[in-house]
């Protein structure tokens, strides 16, 4: 295998935000174009230089059958590659992964990676969302919601490992502390919360209560990143952020199929509602980068429920199997002195929608010392996890200020 570690770097990253209450409602297309044009202008990258436009999946609030071409059309670029990279939300980081491959092959000079969504501005998000997470034929007729689908794994996680509601609540409490410092976090004005607040919040789909669930981000976000080979990156960027390692793993579709999946990693020994492809993707990423979880200064995950954050801490190697609850309970992700974890407030307090590459941007911003929210000192290596389909599709990327090997 080609040595991909540290071979490419992020040289620029931009975002555009539109809020629900804004006088002029922004579409994802408008936000993406705004972010991309700003990025290309700042980086002085002409339209002919973009060899690949990779976007995350077509937004629900801007559906068109050739979405990436709509972006190509607006930007008037003519890339060699133009496509959606989509394994549910897991595709967002896949845009960078495919860019690294094309850049290493010498086929292109620059890749533009994009995500954008603005559903909460345009769509009533209560209700219909389960239709994107459930099999319409065999699951939706029973009346599940998105939380009820994720709750199946929560139920088994608690049953198999003794995870408690208090341990789950601690994630919401710590994530909220970061959100209070972030100008765009959905819950920034709601004040701090306690474990008791979470445990007393209304039941949504047992065992998940209101504060165990991510709120919708009250608007839309587009993010755009410019990627190039490391030698070019050093020429045009004072502080390129190296793509040290990455991995991706996709296992099944629909929660009802999860237990029908075996004989492939991570289900070689049989199916599981708990273990996920995140552990496989993380292993690939660490191996490529030549680092371990101990070398990571900051972590952003993309799971929209408290328990799944505990689980991801396990899967991504920050604690042992079944120890996510105890790790967090003993201060593992404390705002004050724990591992900086979901530093925008995370899905739970920043809100969910169009985050995609926004999580990646948070790590880059922290490395460049101008985060939108609370600064994390001395960030040298970060890990970002993208995920989609109830725990079905996982991408991991390790970013570094210096080449790791």
């Amino acid at each position, binding site marked *: 295998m080609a040595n991909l570690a540290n071979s490419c770097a992020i040289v620029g990253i931009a975002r555009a935000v539109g809020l629900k209450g804004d006088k002029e409602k922004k579409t994802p297309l408008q936000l993406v174009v705004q972010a991309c044009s700003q990025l290309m202008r700042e980086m002085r990258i002409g339209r002919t230089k973009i060899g690949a436009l990779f976007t995350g999946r077509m937004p629900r609030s801007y559906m068109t059958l050739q979405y990436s071409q709509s972006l190509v059309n607006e930007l008037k670029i003519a890339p060699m590659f133009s496509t959606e990279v989509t394994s549910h939300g897991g595709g967002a980081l896949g845009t960078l992964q495919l860019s690294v491959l094309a850049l290493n092959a010498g086929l292109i000079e620059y890749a533009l990676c994009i995500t954008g969504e603005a559903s909460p501005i345009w769509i009533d998000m209560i209700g219909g969302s389960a239709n994107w997470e459930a099999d*319409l034929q065999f699951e939706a*007729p*029973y*009346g599940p919601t998105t*939380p*009820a689908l994720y709750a*199946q794994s929560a139920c088994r996680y608690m049953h198999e490992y003794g995870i408690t509601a208090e341990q789950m609540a601690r994630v919401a409490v710590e994530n909220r502390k970061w959100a209070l410092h972030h100008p765009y976090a959905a819950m920034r004005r709601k004040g701090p919360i306690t474990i008791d607040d979470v445990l007393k919040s209304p039941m949504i*789909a*047992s065992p998940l209560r209101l504060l165990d669930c991510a709120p919708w981000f009250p608007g839309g976000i587009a993010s755009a990143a410019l990627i190039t080979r490391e030698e070019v990156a050093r020429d045009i960027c004072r502080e390129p952020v190296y793509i040290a390692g990455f991995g991706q793993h996709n296992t099944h579709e629909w929660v009802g199929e999860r237990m029908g999946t075996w004989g492939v990693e991570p289900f070689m020994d049989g199916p599981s*509602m708990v273990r996920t492809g995140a552990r496989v993707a993380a292993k690939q990423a660490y191996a490529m980068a030549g680092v371990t979880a101990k070398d990571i200064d900051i972590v952003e995950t993309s799971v929209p429920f408290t328990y799944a954050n505990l689980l991801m801490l396990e899967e991504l190697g920050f604690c042992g199997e079944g120890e996510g609850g105890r790790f967090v309970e003993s201060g593992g992700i404390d705002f004050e002195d724990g591992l900086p974890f979901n530093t925008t407030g995370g899905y739970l307090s920043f809100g969910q929608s169009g985050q995609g590459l926004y999580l990646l941007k948070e790590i880059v911003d922290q490395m460049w010392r101008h985060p939108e929210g609370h600064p994390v000192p001395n960030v040298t290596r970060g890990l970002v996890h993208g995920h989609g389909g109830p725990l079905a599709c996982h991408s991991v990327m390790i970013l570094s200020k210096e080449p790791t090997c």
Partner: protein
Amino acid sequence: MSETSNISVPDWSGGKKVQAGDQFLGLYQPSPETVGFWEGVKRRELLFKWCGECARAYHPRRMICPQCSSTELTWKPASGKGTVYSYSEVHRAPSPEFQKEAPYNVGLIETAEGVHFFCRICAESGARVEVGTPARLDFRVLGSGYLLPVFVIGSEAAK
């Protein structure tokens, strides 16, 4: 609502039309391969796909056996016995029709055939749903308006 007079089941044989306003864009998930399953439901039978070669049951819609690649899968009636593998009690339902039934349980039943079957779990006479609770097959018309295979727990189910 009488269950016997209403034997409407989901029909995905021709897929669902995806529309943009008046414009027809394409078909969502036409599933002629699942017609047999829904015909079974009309007869109040739960059918799993069965690979005779591997003696293994699958659900839903397996076209080939992932173990031996056989394409000779047949429909075989399930025993209707199982236990609760996972569950969630839904308090905030996805639509007003379902909200009328809330709170209700959806979850996975580990059937005697080894299939983990996602369905509504109906509790009889105040029975509590827990992991490992015995459950038996039944058919109910749910908020969706369709007759569907469900699993029931309670004193009757344990027998």
